[in-house]
């Protein structure tokens, strides 16, 4: 086994270890450690990606050397490595962009706590990506939940607490369902490791026994993770959570945390339950319908918001809907589109959150439409970044959103029964997206209601500008040079089977 194969394990452990270490460090040092950790993970994940691309196969890696069926395994294939790489890039940029706000929003004594939570979150996300057994998955789902709650609360104002409680309740509900389905699965198969579990499921389906329990497992698994990732109609926690957390946290939560669960769901579908079984169980149609409704409802609600943070948060509801719709198409092309959209959305939404903050900075920290007028001139980098993000969401060619839209549409054409609904859904949702995002773009370039002094434009932090520009580049790369990534996704999905 090559040395590179250790990297997935190393990155999980490194992240966790950094979290522990940070508890005795002061804020700035914790920050440095955290940034170092994310960079290291990025490097390691890229190495794994290169390795798996080169070998063209995946490999499993058992932690702690317990033999199956009890062991804790991780598995690394192209898709896992790609996701890990993408996530660490986004994580790094989000932290960079939101950095100055972390130190203003969070009490000085607690800044190191923020980074502990980020470290833990990173480690749990990596674990969700790489895991090859369901129990590990569950453990890290919980760690993830706790870390996320901490991030939401850390701003310590009334909104934060309320949001965190909401998130906690919904999230635990989801975890609970996940746990129940896990137990049932264990009950009927006797396995927690993915490969043997899948074999057992295959045998059950072939024999025709346990049809109902299997259906329940699929349903609970889907619903549980759907709740956690905020699929309509379980989205009620999203706006508050994303809307009021500190910017870095909003960006991370919206672009990474929910995506981790979706990734896990896809992995479970393929690696445990068997994708054919899921497709034939019709649960997938429910996901499709809710995804589609989510796309529309999320956007409609976003239109109604005057607070831009909430607007962006509602837009997430819509985007999650896209992803579930892709999964719900029940074809490989649909799945590939969904995975690609995970990246698109992660890259775009964090860009939006970060650049929006850049705009608030020069508008007395206010986030409503009126106050933001003219902010595009006061902070040019953030203005342009926001416009790019908005256009990407609308599906403007050359940006990432266009490619995912194209992939969704192409996938839809290949599944005749869902074609018309999907295509019209895409079209309508594009228009709705245009309405709320471009309305905001126009208003940040319309004349301000009052004169802002010259000093306003100096309030914008440089790191934020740099992060914005980097995000734009990520978006352009996804939009212009998508072919290698799409190929990698296809290869990764094939490895899942």
């Amino acid at each position, binding site marked *: 086994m090559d040395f590179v194969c250790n990297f997935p394990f190393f990155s999980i452990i490194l992240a966790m270890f950094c979290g522990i270490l940070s508890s005795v460090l002061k804020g700035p040092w914790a920050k440095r450690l955290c940034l170092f950790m994310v960079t290291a993970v990025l490097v390691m994940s890229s190495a794994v990606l290169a390795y798996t691309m080169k070998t063209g196969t995946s490999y499993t890696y058992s932690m702690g050397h317990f033999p199956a069926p009890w062991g804790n395994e991780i598995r690394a294939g192209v898709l896992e490595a790609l996701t890990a790489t993408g996530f660490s890039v986004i994580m790094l940029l989000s932290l960079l962009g939101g950095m100055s706000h972390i130190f203003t929003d969070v009490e000085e004594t607690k800044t190191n706590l923020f980074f502990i939570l980020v470290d833990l979150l990173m480690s749990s996300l990596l674990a969700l990506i790489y895991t090859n057994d369901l129990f590990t998955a569950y453990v890290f789902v919980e760690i993830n939940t706790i870390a996320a709650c901490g991030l939401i609360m850390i701003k310590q104002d009334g909104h934060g607490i309320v949001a965190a409680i909401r998130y906690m309740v919904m999230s635990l509900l989801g975890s609970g369902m996940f746990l129940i389905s896990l137990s049932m699965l264990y009950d009927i198969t006797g396995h927690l490791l993915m490969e043997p579990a899948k074999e057992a499921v295959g045998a059950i389906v072939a024999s025709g026994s346990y049809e109902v329990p299997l259906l329940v497992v699929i349903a609970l698994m889907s619903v549980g993770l759907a709740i956690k990732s905020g699929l309509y109609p379980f989205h009620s926690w999203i706006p508050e959570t994303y809307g009021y957390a500190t910017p870095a946290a909003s960006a991370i939560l919206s672009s990474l945390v929910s995506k981790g669960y979706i990734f896990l769901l896809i992995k479970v579908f393929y690696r445990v339950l068997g994708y054919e079984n899921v497709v034939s169980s019709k649960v997938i149609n429910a996901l499709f319908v809710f995804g589609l409704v989510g796309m529309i409802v999320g956007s409609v609600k976003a239109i109604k918001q005057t607070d831009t943070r909430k607007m962006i948060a509602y837009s997430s509801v819509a985007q999650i809907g896209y992803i579930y719709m892709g999964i719900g198409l029940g074809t490989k092309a649909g799945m590939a589109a969904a995975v690609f959209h995970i990246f698109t959305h992660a890259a775009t939404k964090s860009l939006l959150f970060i650049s929006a903050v850049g705009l608030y900075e020069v508008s007395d920290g206010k986030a409503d439409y009126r106050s933001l007028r003219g902010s595009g001139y006061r902070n040019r980098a953030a203005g342009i970044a926001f416009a790019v993000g908005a256009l990407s969401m609308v599906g403007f*060619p050359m940006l990432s959103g266009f*490619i995912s*839209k194209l992939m969704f549409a192409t996938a839809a054409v290949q599944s*005749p029964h869902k074609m018309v609904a999907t295509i019209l859904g895409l079209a309508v949702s594009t228009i709705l997206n245009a309405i709320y995002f471009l*309305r905001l773009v126009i208003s940040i370039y319309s004349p301000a209601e009052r004169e802002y002094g010259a000093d306003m434009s100096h309030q914008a932090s440089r790191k934020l500008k740099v992060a914005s520009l980097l995000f734009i580049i990520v978006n352009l790369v996804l939009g*212009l*040079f998508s072919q290698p990534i799409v190929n990698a996704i296809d290869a990764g999905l094939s490895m899942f089977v």
Partner: protein
Amino acid sequence: MNQLLLVAPVLLPIAGGILMLMIPEKEARVHPIFTELIVLASSAMIWAVLFTGREQGNGAVLFSMAGNLKVFFRMDGMGAVFSGLVSVLWPLATLYAFEYMEGDRRGREFFAFYTMTYGVTLGIALSGNLVTLYLFYELLTLVTFPLVLHDRTKEAIRASRKYLYYSIGGAAFAFIGLVFVLIYGSTADFTLGGVLNKGVPGFDTNVILFMYVLAFFGFGVKAALFPVHSWLPSVSVAPTPVTALLHAVAVVKSGAFAILRLTYFSYGADFLKGTWAHYVVLGAVLVTIVYGSTMAVKEVHFKRRLAYSTISNLSYVLLGAVMMSAAGMAAALSHLVFHAFMKICSFFCAGAVMHQAGRNYVYELDGIGKKMPVTLACFTIAGLSLTGIPLFAGFISKWNIAQAAVGLGGIPGFLAAGVLLYSALMTGIYMMTVVVRAYFPKEGYDETALDGVKEPGWRMLTPIVIFAAVILFFGLYSRPLFHFLQQTAGGSGI
């Protein structure tokens, strides 16, 4: 070299426009010169390709987004017509803009986006496949919307918002058409006669037709097709050079151009002819013509009236297009060219009146013909031409469209010809009332109110006169051009 000549005219104005945003605001005198230089350079390149190397040009791939999503330029007959058209109009319109925009606070921004729009429009004209077309179509929305927003008044903001929503919404539907061509077409490159491949599994004629209709209406947004037209009258709040060049020519013609591409080069006229989709789009076009010209009669705001006129005239182009025949396509292209000159001329005249006399409404124009004789004479020429009076260019294209309609035959042909003439009558009404008022003010109008009003300067007047001359020229001598268009429509013009 040839490949470079295809790519450069598109990229140069775009890059130049971005560069211009970097020139300090204070250097106000530099902007126009810079703009004109870039515009002329691009036009020169287009002409170079037009006159020298069009035949050998195999096209140029700029880059590839993914798989078959190539950004690909080529100048075939249609591209030659459209790029030739805009490359003539743009330098002149820019000249007009210099005088019109003098002293404007946001001149730099204006010229920057104005220049970029040129590149993007050329991109549409030269695009060699539907993907490229779609890309530049979206870009066009993006670079023109700051121009609508230009004044930053409440009205302008509202109009630009409407413009964006409509355009993006339209593009969303056009996108669907694109996807279907990508999947069911043998290639995305434009091929006269269509690229649909019935051998692709899952090919369902009705579904494809439905998607064509969606895409037709999608691109139809830019071409101001009823019921998705209402952005066009609203955006007349923009400065006149914008309304004239963009919302009477570049933007709206891009919509019509895209529909022609979609119909004749992607889905294929033979595939569509006689299907229900054919009649749906034909119906929409006819309704638009009637609606546009009727509303123009009702409208008393000068520029908005012209905007409604644009709505109906664009549908003339589309009417030619939906004849689904070579004759129809040639007719559509001829009206595409002629209407550009007629409408830009009349808009520039309206702009000159607004600029010199501050009159915005038709009922305020009494006696203006005495003070601005050249402008109004040119306006009269444009008006007569729009009405379709013989010896002016408009007659030629209407004749062609009507002949194509007759060729279609049956009730649709009858209806089409009838609608054409109804609209011509309405055009006569809404254009001639202006002319009559300007030259024959009612007794007792206040002559002193127009004191001090005089003809605009040479930079505004030159384009107006040139356009009027072109209208007359084509009215009398359009045969070589029309032969070229027929060749293009017949497929041998590549």
